[in-house]
């Protein structure tokens, strides 16, 4: 099942890492969902992807997503106490998975709507990839303004493999 | 002589550096003065040098270096790093220094603890001033009970 994108936000609410996959499928499935059974059978042969109207840049996407998870998280906490946090939500087009560490690092992943819960997977990315290759890299800065030091080779490589293994499940 | 009935006692502990500089000397007897031991320890250096080529078993123990008289004998121990430990014993037994092995081991352990202190200057220029080391050596000497006397 396809995974569309992945974001990490640091404790200063800044997006320090983004990665997109399956651009085409994502917008197709969104389009398909909105068009309700409109038959789109195969991806267009041309290079131009079906651009959703008013599509935003990756940075704006990230900002928007952060705004949503941040408000949603605060709302959940207000409703059911400070220890609660939301796990995922779903729209017609995608499913958003959320994991937050006690150090206020936030991991967000957008996937196909039928994907099962990925909270554990996000936790694994934190433990096995982020902590191992980013935090423990003595040459990388402690803070990552503008994402500096996060997208290191080992991290990218590990993430790519991990994503493939989830998609294959 | 009456003295032979007295139990053996450690009279002096000395440590000599790789370059034969005196690092540490402490006496535990009142019968002779410290200067005497300085001379005594100094003379043992020749024996270390003399015996070293024939020492092939890799052991640190040099055993009895020499006996001054019936009442005093020197025993030696050389580490692979060239540090020499010398212990002078009053009223020595005839065991040839076998009794002293644990003492030398304890001294070496104390010495290792000493050099592991990050503030210790291991330059062989000055004498060892550490109070803790001083005390540890004192404890080792006090605690020594030669096995041959069955104590």
């Amino acid at each position, binding site marked *: 099942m396809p995974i569309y994108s992945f974001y990490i936000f640091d404790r200063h*609410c800044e997006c320090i890492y983004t990665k997109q996959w399956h651009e085409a499928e994502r917008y197709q499935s969104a389009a398909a969902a909105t068009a309700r059974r409109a038959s789109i059978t195969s991806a267009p042969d041309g290079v131009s992807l079906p651009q959703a109207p008013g599509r935003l840049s990756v940075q704006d996407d990230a900002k928007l997503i952060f*705004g949503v998870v*941040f408000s949603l998280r605060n709302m959940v906490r207000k409703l059911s106490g400070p220890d609660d946090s939301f796990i995922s939500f779903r729209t017609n087009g995608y499913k958003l998975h959320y994991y937050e560490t*006690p*150090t206020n690092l936030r991991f967000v992943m957008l996937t196909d709507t039928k994907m099962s819960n990925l909270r554990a997977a996000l936790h694994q990315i934190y433990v096995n990839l982020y902590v191992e290759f980013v935090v423990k890299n003595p040459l990388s800065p402690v803070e990552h303004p503008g994402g500096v030091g996060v997208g290191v080779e080992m991290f990218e490589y590990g993430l790519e493999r991990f994503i493939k293994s989830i998609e294959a499940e | 002589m009456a003295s032979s009935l007295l139990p053996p006692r450690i009279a002096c502990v000395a440590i000599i550096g790789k370059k034969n500089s005196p690092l540490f000397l402490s006496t535990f007897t009142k019968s002779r003065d410290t200067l005497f031991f300085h001379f005594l320890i100094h003379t043992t250096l020749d024996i270390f040098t003399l015996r070293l080529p024939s020492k092939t078993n890799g052991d640190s123990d040099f055993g009895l270096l020499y006996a001054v008289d019936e009442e005093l004998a020197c025993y030696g121990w050389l580490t692979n790093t060239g540090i020499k430990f010398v212990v002078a014993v009053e009223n020595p037994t005839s065991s040839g220094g076998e009794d002293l092995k644990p003492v030398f081991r304890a001294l070496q352990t104390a010495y290792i603890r000493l050099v592991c*202190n990050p503030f210790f200057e291991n330059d062989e220029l000055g004498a060892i001033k550490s109070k803790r080391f001083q005390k540890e050596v004192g404890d080792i000497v006090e605690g020594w009970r030669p096995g041959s006397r069955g104590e």
Partner: protein
Amino acid sequence: MSTTKHARIGEEVWKSRVDKVNAELVTLTYGSIVQQLCKDLEGDYTEVNKQLDKMGYNIGLRLIEDFLAKTNMGRCNGFRDTAESIAKIGFKIFLNITPTVTNWSADNKSFSLVFEENPLADFVELPDDGRAQNELWYSNILCGVLRGALEMVQMQVEAHFASDVLRGNDSTEMRVELIRIIDDELPPGDE
């Protein structure tokens, strides 16, 4: 969480999830850092303390992530819970010691950690220059580590040593005080 649970988590993580390293290597490495600092700063022990604290702070900022990754802990339930976690899990998994948490202040905002053993200070004998005994906090890096680590989980604390066996005190005691809970940062206003 009960205290025994903390101890159990600490034990478990220590056994199964921590890479071990030779203790003397750590002790000697730390020792040469402190010694070199003392030399470079020409015996200005107040400054040495400050530098050690700063180094510790930078370690703490990272170490907390490793701590969370290894223990899979959630947020602590109050400062007392935090203290127990530090002593029974944090110190256990990183140094294999368990200091005692004691001397709570009436407002539950400060406590002491009493160290019966301190792997950093093995072999150490402070320089006998008449000042080190009064001015140098040999293990001050630990204060910095706590400060850095707790700051990352929204707790601003002040930590300092109150006594040290190296100085001839009866025990080694660190005082930790909660200054404030740091509010979550808000995203910058929408442009």
